[in-house]
């Protein structure tokens, strides 16, 4: 039987949650026995080549590209998991959520105390994904099946969740494994 496939993505996150995936230490050898990685920054596969059993999403949606990637994951993954506070509630990027977008850009590119920008230009190249009006948690954009909180979620939390899902057991996290920080 072919191994189930896992895909991962970092949207508006810091890659800390991906670091936490690597933090499962030598269990990563068992994980490689258990699954095959598809689209993921871990192996640098850019496009889905097959349907995946599990998709791990780090970070919320702060721009249109994040939304497209997230929708692509929803289409290609059976089970989609929000990993970490940014995916669940927006996290640090969501600190801008009650400040109008224009004010944020003006502060970053025009008015900030350390800004040097003689052309007074705010980046607007077509190659740059458009920012959303605010940062959205993943479950406000597509349906998410599970949430693993933490900043980052402990490696044990990610491990327990993956093993439970891939072996068809119910996902029950103990008290120590649900933490928001």
């Amino acid at each position, binding site marked *: 039987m072919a191994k189930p496939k896992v895909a991962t993505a970092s949207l508006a996150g810091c890659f800390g949650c991906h670091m936490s995936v690597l933090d499962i230490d030598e269990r990563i050898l068992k994980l490689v026995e258990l699954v095959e990685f598809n689209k993921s920054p871990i192996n640098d596969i850019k496009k889905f080549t097959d349907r995946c059993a599990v998709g791990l999403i780090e970070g919320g949606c702060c721009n249109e590209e994040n939304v497209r990637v997230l929708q692509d994951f929803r289409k290609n993954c059976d089970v989609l998991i929000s990993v970490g*506070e940014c995916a669940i*509630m927006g996290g*640090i990027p969501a*600190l801008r*959520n009650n400040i109008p977008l224009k004010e944020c850009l003006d502060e970053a590119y025009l008015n900030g105390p350390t800004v040097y920008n003689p052309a007074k230009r705010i980046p607007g190249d077509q190659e740059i994904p458009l920012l959303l009006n605010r940062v959205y*948690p993943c479950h406000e954009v597509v349906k998410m099946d599970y949430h*693993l909180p933490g900043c980052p979620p402990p490696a044990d939390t990610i491990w327990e969740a993956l093993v439970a899902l891939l072996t068809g057991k119910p996902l029950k996290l103990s008290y120590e494994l649900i933490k928001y*920080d």
Partner: protein
Amino acid sequence: MSATFTFTIDGKEIKASPGQTIMEAAEAAGVYIPRLCYSKDLRPHGSCRVCTCMVNGRPQAACTQPAAAGMVVDNNTDEIQAIRRDLVDMLFVDGNHFCPFCEKSGNCELQAMAYRLGITAPRFPYLWPERSVDASHPEVFIDRNRCILCGRCVNASKDIDGKNVFQFVGRGEHKRVAVNAEALAADTDLKGADRASMVCPVGAIVLKYKGYATPIGRRIYDQKPIGSEIESRRK
């Protein structure tokens, strides 16, 4: 005469004396009723409703409802826990709660309640309200983004400190904790050692220069759920 009487919580017989609330009698018997706004040394406020129990089939706040002989109280049922989960979910989306960098994290009663209820993400859309901070005071920092309007600071300042530093102003979604006379905290006689500066269940009123003093793993709710200290007294 202060004759004791009994009532039941989840079928277990509980002893109580006249004047005791359901919460007080339960606590003395080692039964934990989840709560957020209630604090032992303060007048019960009954605002958070997390201590809601079914009392003879009707929802009542256990912190304000006096115990009575023969009362039948349901506390730890699926129905009540679902109500509590909804309440805590709403508190999370109604403010701006950034647990990862909050200095109260690990010692926060709201967060601990969510842990106890097994909440991994709130089920309601985030509201991202605009709230103010007040960093004017030399010892105390006020961040209304994290306030759950429990009223502990208001009652502590009035009843224990005798100062009346905090009040509620506004109604409904505009309700907020204000300091005396539309002023900044620095303009009041609030002190860091006041009870009002220390009773906040969340990170809305915190003492300056004390943040992150306890390492992760040794904070109050890192290992054991909120309420386990009461449950451990249960015979």
